[in-house]
């Protein structure tokens, strides 16, 4: 098929999916613009974030060069090492911001839970792609068990945000593999029961208090409800058109907490309004659509499941972050992908896109009747 080969563009040779890459670049630029405002016009912060973006993009390009076959081969090994590291973190990890997340490896400090965001979907994809789709009940159970182990280890650190992301990455891999609808619905039906059991028998008083504060932040306006109230005021006061770039009073006067990291969406929607939000969500939707398209077009089941899980996890980031800053979900500490300040999450996210691009660009011809 020489014509096919000729059509191989320069981007394909570089293993870059151009639409996805352009979408990400637009998002990054937008992120830097908001970052400048959220940091109080601090150019240093913007420059640092650009360095993060550079490193993350390099990482993405590097991972895109590796064939999905190799990821598949090493998945289970990654998983075993990853779980081992998570246990190590709980035993000897460094405490940062009240939670044990870091392993000090001499030169760099290292967060095993971040790596697990990729390793868990890889492992599930590897496990389920060994069998025919749709998976049998037994395989689904084992799949969920594989997800549950790292999720619980991370929740114990405690890092609720990351454990949610990891759980959903595994869940989406299983869902996409064709888990039966009746099973899905019965699990969904069991969730409220599980919630009630958790509330009545397992939750501490302070945890219940947190949930109550989340349900009605105005009851504790000076305590933990303060952040969410200020964030809602920022978003609400932005209105349709926003207060204008650098003119958000809630953000510029520092009423918004964590305004250049987890709460950057509040800054964005205060300054750019609902119209800006629609634009931002459209870009996200485009990236997600492109990611799903890549997964659908993937030749191997492993690639399909892994690609789909990665892009759906990306969406979970968006949904949880926007949901929490706008008062729909409790505050769990999930960044707004590509926009929030921070190197670690950026590298993890772009690594995921690297793997996705690898899936999209490494194609073999199938042997028809070979």
């Amino acid at each position: 098929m020489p014509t096919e080969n000729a059509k191989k563009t320069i981007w394909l040779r570089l293993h870059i999916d151009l639409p996805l890459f352009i979408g990400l670049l637009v998002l990054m630029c937008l992120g830097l613009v908001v970052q400048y405002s959220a940091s109080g016009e601090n150019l240093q912060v913007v420059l640092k974030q650009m360095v993060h973006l550079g490193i993350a993009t390099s990482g993405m390009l590097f991972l895109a060069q590796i064939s999905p076959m190799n990821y598949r081969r090493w998945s289970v090994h990654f998983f075993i090492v990853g779980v081992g590291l998570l246990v190590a973190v709980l035993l000897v990890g460094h405490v940062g911001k009240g939670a044990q997340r870091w392993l000090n490896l001499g030169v760099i400090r290292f967060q095993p839970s971040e790596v697990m965001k990729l390793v868990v979907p890889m492992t599930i994809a590897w496990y389920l792609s060994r069998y025919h789709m749709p998976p049998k009940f037994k395989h689904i159970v084992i799949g969920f068990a594989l997800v549950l182990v790292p999720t619980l280890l991370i929740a114990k650190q405690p890092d609720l945000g990351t454990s949610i992301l990891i759980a959903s990455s595994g869940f989406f891999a299983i869902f996409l593999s064709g888990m039966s609808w009746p099973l899905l619905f019965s699990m969904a039906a069991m969730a409220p029961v599980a919630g009630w059991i958790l509330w009545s028998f397992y939750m501490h008083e302070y945890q219940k208090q947190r949930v109550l504060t989340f349900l009605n932040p105005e009851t504790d306006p000076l305590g933990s409800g303060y952040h969410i109230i200020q964030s809602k005021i920022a978003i609400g006061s932005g209105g349709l058109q926003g207060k204008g770039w650098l003119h958000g009073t809630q953000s510029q006067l520092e009423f918004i907490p964590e305004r250049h990291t987890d709460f950057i969406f509040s800054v964005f929607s205060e300054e750019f309004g609902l119209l800006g939000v629609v634009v931002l969500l459209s870009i996200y939707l485009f990236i997600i659509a492109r990611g799903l398209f890549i997964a659908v077009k993937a030749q191997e089941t492993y690639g399909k499941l892994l690609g789909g899980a990665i892009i759906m996890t990306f969406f979970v980031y968006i949904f949880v972050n926007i949901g929490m800053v706008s008062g729909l979900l409790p505050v769990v500490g999930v960044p707004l992908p590509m926009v929030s300040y921070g190197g670690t999450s950026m590298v993890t996210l772009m690594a995921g896109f690297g793997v996705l691009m690898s899936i999209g660009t490494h194609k073999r011809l199938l042997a028809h009747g070979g």
Partner: protein
Amino acid sequence: MSYTQITIHDHTSESNLFARRAFFAFLFVVLLMLVLLTNLYHLQVSRHEMYQTRSNDNRISVRPIAPNRGLIFDRNGVLLAENRPTFSLEVVPEKTGNLAPMLSRLAEVINLSVEQQEKFIDGAKRQRRFKSLTLKDNLDEAEVAKFSVHQHRFPGVSIEARLTRFYPYGEALTHTLGYVGKINKKELKAIDADGSSANYAATYDIGKLGLERKYETELHGKVGYREVEINSRGRILRTLKIEPPVPGNDLILSLDIDLQKTAQQALAGERGAIVAIAPSTGEVLAMYSNPSYDPNLFVHGISSKDYRPLIQSLDRPLINRTTQGRYPPASTVKPLMALLGLESGLVSEHTKIHDPGFFQIPNVKRKYRDWKKWGHGSVDLAKSVYQSCDIYYYDLSYRLGIDKISDFMTQFGFGEKTGIDIYEETDAIMPSRGWKRAQHNQPWYAGDTISVGIGQGYWTVTPMQLAFSTATLVNKGQIHPPHLVTRQKRPLALESPDTEEALTSAGFEYIDTLDPDLPPIVLKDEANWQIILNAMHETVYNPRGTAHKVFKGAEYDAAAKTGTAQVIGIAEDETYDEKSISERHRDNAMFIGYAPFDKPEIVVAIAVENGGHGGETAGPVARKILDKYFSNKEKYIANAN
């Protein structure tokens, strides 16, 4: 082969299955994004206005600016109450970090007792976040300088300058000006109740006594506002709008500080009171009560160490004797009694009585004695005044009866507040049948009238009442109630103020205190006024007059009446120290006088407690006042308009 085929077949169906699932996943994404958007629409569009308001409430803080309190001047423009900058140490606890160690470090720089530190930490817990709290008041210059050097070590601690009241003449004017002090709980309640709490938002002090209390509303002024933008830590970033405060009215008094100081000196070492008023207007030229105390002690909150002697002293310095001291008027009422005698037709100018030294009510054994044991012999009206003959008035009052006396004297203001513009004033007592029935549940006896006839018994007056009644007498019935404030200087608020400085260029308007224009006392025979005034004149110029010695060599022509009262004590609950009994049971010396005789400009009334004879103790005090007045009288006239 077959294996491959199966694989291919499976691959297609698996692809289709995955594509379906991916489609569902995409639908799921779109659905949840719509949920997010719906919620955001709700926040940003439906409830936008509410959040807009809350956002503004967050960032905009309205800070009140205290108006400058009006100043008080004497009649010649001498400043009697001023505002001076004082320095206080202010702390915002949220900005200092841990309070206790900070305070103990601060105590190395500024004198701070452990008690003060604990009290502050305790108080800080109950305050709103980011509110500035006063740690120490009234820092001296050395403390300010010392703290300024170390300020960088204490974030969240700063020195604030504000204006506080200062009374340069101290004790001389305490009872008249009063003083301001920190607003207490009760006053705060009153402020809230009358709806002026907004106006007091930035005010620390309030008038507690005297003119400061009476004219609180006028002196206070109108609060101003500064609308500022603040960040989440309460730091002011910029001013958005200013509405400057309007200072309070300045008060211009009729008092003359020189005459006041003369009064203070004249009473040095005595307990007593001096009132000097201009009879033609009612303007109070001087009013002084001794002993006095330093009003500046009260401005920053008086310590119990300073306060205890003031409340425990037998001399009762806290009482304003000019308006709260109740003294038997004694013989100083004889001119008015004589006037009533003429009016009622019971005596004429030439009626003479014989004074054997005592008086008896018909058919009653008891003898009412004259102060002169052997009597004055033959006594006419003039002599009864200048010699102060008691028998003449025993007889006269017995014949008049209490009802006539009481009615007549009430017209001259006895038994009623004069209405002078301070709150600290008593009615004193003008006795009557009704009063005795109400007060003692007893009928009025003829003997009661005899005592009242010589200004004793139940009758008590304040020096202010005495001066007021004398003024009415020398005015021949024209009534001009005494007052202190003659005019107020009111700053005009600017129409569209731009800066705080601009206020100084705003204009003023003057508000004059109006004479109430009361109907005069009309006699059946207006010539009777002059008969009485002549008798008072004779008290001074007749060599046998009781005030003759007092005005010897004076460059002005005075008229007067002396009085010597048996002591009843100025307060109900006074307890006498064993040693001081004798001294405190000495007679009170009373004195009224005026000058010049033909065209009266100044009336004085004086009470000296336990001073003995009125002519001998109170007289010289009056002389000093009048001498001072006439040594420099141009300034009283020049400023009279």
